[in-house]
């Protein structure tokens, strides 16, 4: 991967100010980007949990009551929660390897 000239210049300047290599700076950026996304996903999971208690409870509610064509919220929240859980697992797995 090649960096654009502006990013390359930033890297050069920050290396004059901090005792880190370019690799360390880039790796820290990768880790912090993943961590920020994990925080965002956990925040959304907490909102859903406050509303439905658990993903399993929401799945049960969708199965029991169904979802009206007038209001898909139960279903879209279910899809989103599963997507949150899946992405969180991938990111956490990634960070564990890093």
């Amino acid at each position, binding site marked *: 991967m090649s960096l654009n000239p502006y990013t390359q210049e930033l890297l050069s300047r920050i290396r004059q100010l901090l005792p880190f290599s370019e690799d360390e700076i880039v790796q820290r950026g990768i880790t912090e980007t993943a961590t920020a996304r994990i925080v*965002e*996903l956990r*925040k*959304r999971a907490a*909102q859903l949990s406050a509303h439905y208690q658990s993903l399993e409870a929401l799945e049960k509610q969708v199965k029991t009551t*169904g*979802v*009206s*064509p*007038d*209001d*898909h*919220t139960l*279903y*879209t929240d*279910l*899809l*989103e*929660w*599963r*997507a*949150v859980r*899946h*992405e969180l697992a*991938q990111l956490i797995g990634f960070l564990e390897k890093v």
Partner: protein
Amino acid sequence: MVWYTAAIQLLRDSGLFRDVQIQGAKVRAMLDETRFLDIHFDPTTGSYSYALIDLSLPYPGDKHLFGWDDFPHPGNQSLHELASFPHHFQWRDADGNWLFIETSFCGNIEADIPTVLEYLRNFVTSDDPGW
């Protein structure tokens, strides 16, 4: 690659939206102040909901103007008779009643989004959406 990367790129490249964002784990693409396209997708099962929401609609509920999803809404006989069931497209007729028609969608988001965008472009540029 995470599922929404390609979806966001397709939505942005369409030029239809004033803003496209990831909110939590859904994608929201703003058409204007009151109308937006919400993309929900479960990458573990391929289940989906792509919906145009219009907050100015007079109906109760989620302000769904039209959309595609794969939920088998119980009690809707016309939906259950579709060859594509549970996959369907739904929109409201002039009286506000839901109508269901078949869709070719089956949870392949990268293949589905271009069709969603084609529909939406037709909708925003014409009084007659053409369905």
